[in-house]
C-alpha cells in the first residue's frame, strides 16, 4: 500500500514536471495521424462532404428556411405576466415575468437540457434514463423527476427544492451538492459563496474567503455537505449524527475544522480513506 502511494506520488511529480496544457491530446493526435495515413477513410469523407454540399446547395437554391427553424433552439420568453408551458417530455414550467427558457431539438434524445434566465418553477416528469438538466450562467442543476424553483439574476442562482432530490453544481467551485425536499441553495458567483438552508438550519461556505458558518445544522447535514464539497468520504458514529452545531470558521483547512468540531463536541468524525 505504502509502495503504491509512493508510486502515485512519483508519477504525480513526473507528470507535473512535464505537463503542458493541450499536449498529449488524443483527439489532436488522431487528427494528425489520420491526415497522414494512406487510404484511411478518404472515401467516406468525400461522400460526406458531397452529401452536405448537395443538401446545402438545395436549401440555398430553393430558399426554404425549414432547415434553419428546425435546428434553431426553441426559446420561450415570459414577456408580460407569468407564463406556463409544457415541454416535449411533458414536464411543466411556470415562468415569472421576464424569465427566459431555451432548449434545442436534441432535448429528450439523450438527456433533457434547458438553459434559463430569471425565475422559473419546474415540475419535472420522472425519467430515470434521461436526466433533466437546467443551466444558468452561474450553476447547473440535475434532476430525474421532482418539483423545484430556480431563481437566477446577475448575482447568482437560487434553488428551492419542493419535492424529490436535485443535484446543484455552481460554475466555480464546480462541486456537486445534493439537495432534498425543503432545502434551498443560494449561490453567489462573485464571492463563490454557497448558502444552504433547510427549515431551521443553514450552512454558509465562501470559497474565496475560505469561511464556513454553520447555524443549527446537524452533524449529518454538515458531513453530507462537506463530503460532497471536498469530494471525500466522512464518517461519524450514528448516535452523533443528530447532534446540532452552530459555529464559524475562517481560514481553516477541512482537517482543522473537523478537529475543532471533534474536540468541542466530543464527536468522532473521521475521513475514510
Amino acid at each position: 500500500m505504502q509502495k503504491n502511494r509512493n508510486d502515485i506520488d512519483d508519477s504525480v511529480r513526473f507528470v507535473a514536471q512535464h505537463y503542458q496544457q493541450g499536449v498529449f491530446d488524443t483527439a489532436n493526435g488522431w487528427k494528425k495521424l489520420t491526415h497522414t495515413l494512406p487510404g484511411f477513410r478518404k472515401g467516406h469523407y468525400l461522400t460526406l462532404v458531397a452529401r452536405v454540399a448537395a443538401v446545402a446547395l438545395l436549401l440555398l437554391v430553393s430558399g426554404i428556411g425549414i432547415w434553419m427553424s428546425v435546428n434553431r433552439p426553441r426559446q420561450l420568453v415570459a414577456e408580460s405576466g407569468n407564463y406556463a408551458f409544457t415541454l416535449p417530455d411533458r414536464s411543466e414550467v411556470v415562468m415569472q415575468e421576464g424569465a427566459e427558457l431555451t432548449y434545442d431539438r436534441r432535448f429528450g434524445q439523450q438527456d433533457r437540457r434547458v438553459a434559463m434566465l430569471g425565475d422559473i418553477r419546474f415540475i419535472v416528469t420522472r425519467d430515470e434514463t434521461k436526466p433533466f438538466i437546467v443551466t444558468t450562467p452561474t450553476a447547473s442543476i440535475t434532476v430525474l423527476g421532482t418539483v423545484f424553483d430556480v431563481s437566477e439574476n446577475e448575482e447568482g442562482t437560487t434553488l428551492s427544492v419542493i419535492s424529490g432530490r436535485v443535484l446543484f453544481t455552481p460554475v466555480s467551485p464546480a462541486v456537486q451538492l445534493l439537495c432534498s425536499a425543503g432545502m434551498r441553495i443560494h449561490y453567489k458567483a462573485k464571492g463563490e459563496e454557497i448558502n444552504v438552508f433547510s427549515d431551521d438550519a443553514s450552512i454558509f461556505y465562501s470559497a474565496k474567503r475560505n469561511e464556513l458558518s454553520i447555524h443549527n445544522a446537524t452533524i449529518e447535514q454538515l458531513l453530507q455537505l462537506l463530503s460532497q464539497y471536498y469530494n471525500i468520504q466522512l464518517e461519524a458514529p450514528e448516535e452523533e449524527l443528530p447532534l446540532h452545531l452552530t459555529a464559524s470558521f475562517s481560514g481553516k483547512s477541512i482537517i482543522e475544522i473537523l478537529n475543532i468540531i471533534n474536540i468541542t463536541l466530543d464527536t468522532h468524525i473521521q475521513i475514510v480513506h
Partner: protein
Amino acid sequence: MQVSEKQFSKYFHTHYRPLCLHALHFLGNTEEAEDVVQEIFMKLWDKREQLATIKSVKAYLYKAVRNNCLTRIRDAKPTTSLEMVAPDQLLSDEEVEERSEMEARIWKMIDELPERRRHIFLMAKRDGLSYKEIAAQTGLTVKTIENHVFRAMQSLRANDFNAYIFFFA
C-alpha cells in the same frame, strides 16, 4: 485478416496518451514523445494485414515505443545523458504499462482542474515551491494554497463519480 479502421481507432484512442507518457520516460521531451507514438501508429497501420498474428497488440505497442526511443537515444548526439537510457529496466512489462496508464489518467485530471487550482498545483508539484512561497507569489493565504493542493490531490486520488452514484442510486 486485416484490422478494421474501427479497431485501429480503438487501439489509438485507448493507448495514445499512455504510450506518450511511456515514451516521455525515455526522451524527457513531450514533442519527441508524441512523434514516436505517431510513428508507431503509422507502422501499425502499415502492418494491419499481419495484425492477426500479433498476440497482444498492447504489448507490441509498448515494445515498439521502447525500441524506437532507445534507437533515438543511441542515434542522438553524445550530449544525451547516459542515465536516460532504459529508465524502465527495474520494472516488469506489466508494471510499465500500469504506470503509463496511471500517468495518462493523472495528465488528464490535471488538464481538467480549474485553471487557478492547476496553476497552484503545478507550482507545488512541478516547481517544488513551498505553500509559503506560492502564497507570496499569488497573494493568497497559505491556507488557501493548502486547500487548493489538497483538493487537487483529492481529485487525482478520489473517484470523481461518488456524488453521481449517490444521486442516481
